[in-house]
């Protein structure tokens, strides 16, 4: 919880309790938006249902605009916001593994728990696979370590790499997102599929 836990305004336990409630709320929203259905999730790869793309890109541009405006008003120092460090090789390989798992399993990690919570057996099997993967990686970590840590890039931003301001890149991303939404809605009409 943002600055509250590190500065010990709230205790670690309160932090966990808040995380618990936020987690339940998040799961509830996911479930009620239909994200516990693997057909809906996999739809993005076949074009008949692109709600995943729309939801996550809307979330991303909303958060981006929020952060940029808060930074503009001096409420947030973007330098202090945690950015996952980039290890290029493992990011690419991890992305491919995650994507393949997403297509085959029809869930991403969060939604699989959501599906399991409402009793979907495929989601439970997916969670089983998830744990096999996690433990498999952990126990064979020395084999992967070199590849895992390769091509460390620090915490780069696309806007920095392109030499433009964060705001300008934000505008381009918004336009790109809207274009994607239009293409997505076109795809939904082109490859329709009945919900069942």
């Amino acid at each position: 919880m943002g600055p509250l836990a590190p500065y010990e305004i709230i205790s670690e336990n309160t932090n966990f309790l808040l995380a618990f409630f936020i987690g339940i709320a998040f799961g509830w929203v996911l479930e009620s938006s239909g994200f516990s259905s693997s057909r809906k999730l996999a739809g993005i790869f076949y074009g008949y249902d692109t709600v995943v793309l729309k939801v996550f890109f809307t979330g991303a541009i909303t958060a981006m605009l929020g952060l940029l405006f808060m930074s503009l008003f001096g409420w947030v120092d973007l330098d202090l916001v945690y950015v996952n460090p980039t290890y290029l090789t493992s990011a690419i390989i991890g992305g491919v593994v995650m994507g393949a798992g997403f297509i085959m399993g029809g869930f991403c990690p969060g939604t699989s728990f959501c599906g399991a919570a409402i009793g979907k057996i495929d989601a439970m099997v997916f969670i089983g696979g998830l744990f096999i993967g996690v433990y498999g990686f952990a126990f064979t970590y020395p084999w992967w370590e070199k590849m895992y840590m390769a091509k460390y890039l620090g915490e780069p931003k696309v806007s920095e790499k392109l030499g433009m301001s964060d705001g300008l890149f934000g505008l381009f991303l918004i336009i790109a997102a809207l274009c994607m939404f239009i293409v997505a809605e076109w795809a939904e009409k082109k490859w329709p599929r009945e919900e069942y």
Partner: protein
Amino acid sequence: MKPIKLLALFVIPLGIIIAAVPPDRVKHFRLTADELLQEAGAGVQFVSPDVVADMLVQKDPSLRLIDVRTPEEYDAYSMPGAINIPLSSLLSDEYTDILNQEAYMNVFYSNGSVYANQAWMITRQLGYENNYVLEGGLNYWFGNILSPEVPSQTNPNEEFAKYDFRKSAAAALGGGSIVATEGDAPSVKAVKPPVTAKSKKKPAGGC
């Protein structure tokens, strides 16, 4: 109205506004000279050698010792498990992920504390956290931890406790040899020095 049009109606004007304002309106995190002076004056960067010795004996995985002396000096002697980042190449890109991180407690050391302190000041100025300085440097480490002096009989019990701890730490870390405290001084169990460093957890995200 279609939701996509409604969304576009909101986000495109906001995007244009944010693209139009000059970037970097926010004061970025850098310590001012005043703040740095205050931190340095309070000595928050120092870690007592007893704490480091205890962490080494306990094999605490969060401790990372960083030798800021030259590679030659590092090859001649280094503390157990220490890595070498010569002060002159402190700002090199390959070390950024070592110095700017939240998982480890980095402890700089040099022969005295001057070079280690310089390394700390530079990294602190860059806004890096979790970097510390071994108080007294290697000289104090050798003279007091690896070969501690027997306190005189009139000293308080704490001194003997400290001596016993250092003696056993030295034995574990490969310096000196175990000799029981001489005389009929009250025997006190080695007390664990308080560990003050906090390890922060990384925030993690994902869907």
